C-alpha cells in the first residue's frame, strides 16, 4: 500500500482527516460565533467589525480554504457513510447496550450533517450573496440581521438549523479527538463534557440573534 493510500484512503486515514477537518471547522464556528455576539454590542461595533474583516488582505484565500475544509469534511462524511452502509447488514430487531442522547447523536451524524448542509446553503445565499442595506455610505450588516429575521418562518428555520448543528457538534467535537488518537482517562471525560457544553453554547449563541429580532419585532 502506497504512502498516499495509507495516509488518505485507509479506514484510519479517512477518520484522521475527518477529525482534522472537524476540529478546524469547530475553530471556525467558535470565531464566527464570537463575531456574531458583537451584534449585541450595537450597530457601530458590529458594522465596524464587519468592515475590518472585509479589509483582511488574504480574505479570498481564507474563504477558499474554508470552502475546501467544508468540502473535504462533507466528502469524507459521504464516503464514510457509504463505506459503513456497505459493511453492515440489517437486523430484524434493534437493541442497544448503551442509552442516552449521545448515542442517538453519534448514530445520526450523516443526517444532522445533511441538514446542516442544507441550512448552510440557504444561510450563505441569504447572508453572503445578498444585497446588504447601506447606512451612511457603509454596509449595514447589523440592519441585514433585522431584515433577514423579519421573516418569522426564516428565523424559525435558522433556529432549527443551529439546533441541529449543536447536536452534530455534541458528538463531533469529542469524536474528532478520538479519531485523532486522543484517549486519556482524565482528558477524554473532560472533552466529552466540553463537547456537550460547546453544543449548548453554539446552539444558544447562534439562535440568540434571531430570537432577539423576533422578540423585538413583536
Amino acid at each position, binding site marked *: 500500500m502506497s504512502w498516499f493510500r*495509507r495516509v488518505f484512503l485507509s479506514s484510519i486515514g479517512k477518520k484522521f482527516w475527518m477529525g482534522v477537518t472537524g476540529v478546524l471547522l469547530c475553530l471556525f464556528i467558535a470565531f464566527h460565533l464570537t463575531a456574531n455576539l458583537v451584534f449585541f454590542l450595537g450597530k457601530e461595533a458590529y458594522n465596524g467589525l464587519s468592515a475590518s474583516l472585509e479589509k483582511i488582505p488574504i480574505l479570498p484565500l481564507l474563504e477558499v480554504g474554508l470552502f475546501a475544509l467544508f468540502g473535504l469534511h462533507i466528502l469524507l462524511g459521504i464516503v464514510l457513510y457509504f463505506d459503513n452502509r456497505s459493511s453492515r447488514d440489517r*437486523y430484524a430487531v434493534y437493541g442497544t447496550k448503551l442509552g442516552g442522547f449521545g448515542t442517538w447523536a453519534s448514530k445520526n451524524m450523516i443526517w444532522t450533517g445533511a441538514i446542516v448542509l442544507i441550512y448552510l446553503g440557504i444561510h450563505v445565499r441569504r447572508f453572503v450573496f445578498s444585497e446588504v442595506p447601506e447606512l451612511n455610505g457603509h454596509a449595514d450588516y447589523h440592519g441585514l440581521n433585522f431584515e433577514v429575521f423579519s421573516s418569522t418562518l426564516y428565523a424559525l428555520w435558522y433556529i432549527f438549523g443551529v439546533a441541529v448543528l449543536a447536536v452534530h457538534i455534541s458528538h463531533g467535537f469529542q469524536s474528532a479527538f478520538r479519531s485523532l488518537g486522543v484517549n486519556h482517562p482524565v482528558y477524554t471525560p473532560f472533552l466529552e463534557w466540553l463537547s456537550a457544553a460547546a453544543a449548548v453554547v453554539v446552539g444558544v449563541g447562534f439562535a440568540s440573534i434571531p430570537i432577539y429580532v423576533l422578540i423585538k419585532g413583536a
Partner: protein
Amino acid sequence: MKLTLKVWRQSGPKEKGRLVAYVLDDVSPDQSFLEMLDDLNRVLVLKGEEPVVFEHDCREGICGCCGLMINGQAHGPVRGTTVCQLHMRNFKDGDTIVIEPWRAKGFPVIKDLMVDRSAFDRIIEAGGYVSVNTGGIPDANAIPIRKEDADLAMDAAACIGCGACVASCPNASAMLFVGAKISQYALLPQGQVERVARALNMVAAMDREGFGNCSNVAECEASCPKLITLSNIQRMYREHVKASWKYAPREAREAAG
C-alpha cells in the same frame, strides 16, 4: 418459565432466511442461554425437525465461539458476558426473545445462527503475532516493564475474538477487535520488532475484509464480553498514523514485508 423464541433459520449461505417462532414451556431460570437452546434442539430432534445450528465450545465465557444477537443486543442484555454465561433468570416468564446471528458483510451466515468469522483469522494472520523462538514460558514478572503497561496489555489480550463488537456496531466496524490485537503487542517489548509492520498490515487486512469505520458510538465497548475499552482503538490509530507518516514509502514497504 414459558418463553416464545423467534429464531433466525437460514439453510445455507445463499438461501433466504426468516424468523421462526418456537414455544418452550418449562425453561428453568438456572439454565444458561445455550442450555435453553439445547433443550429447544432436543424437542426439534424428537419431532424429526432440523435442529437450530449455533456455535459454542467452552461454555465458560473464554473461547469466543458463541455469539448471538438477543433482542438486538450482542450476547444479550447483560454487560461483560458471553451468551454461554447468560442465564435465563435475566428473562421473565412469557417473554418473547428474538435470536439472530451476527450480521455484517464481513461475517457471512453459514447456517441459522452460525457465521463465518474467518475474516478475523485473516486479520490475525496479517500481523497479530510475534516472531520469537518458542521455548519455555518466561515468568510474567521477569519482563522488566511497568505494571501499568502489563495491565493494559493484559486487558487488551483478554479479547476472545467473538465478533460482538462488529455485530453491535452500526457501521460493522472491527476496530475494537483489531485495536485490542494491535495494543496487546504494542505495549510489550516482544511486540516492538514488528510494531510498524503489524499496524500497517493488520489495518490493511481489516480494510480488505470490508469492515466499516469507527464513528465513536461505543456500542462495541458496551457489548464486549471482555469489557475491552475504546482506548485500544485510539492506540491503534496512533500506531497506524505513526507507521504511515513516519516511514518513507520504501521503508514502510520493507517493514510491511
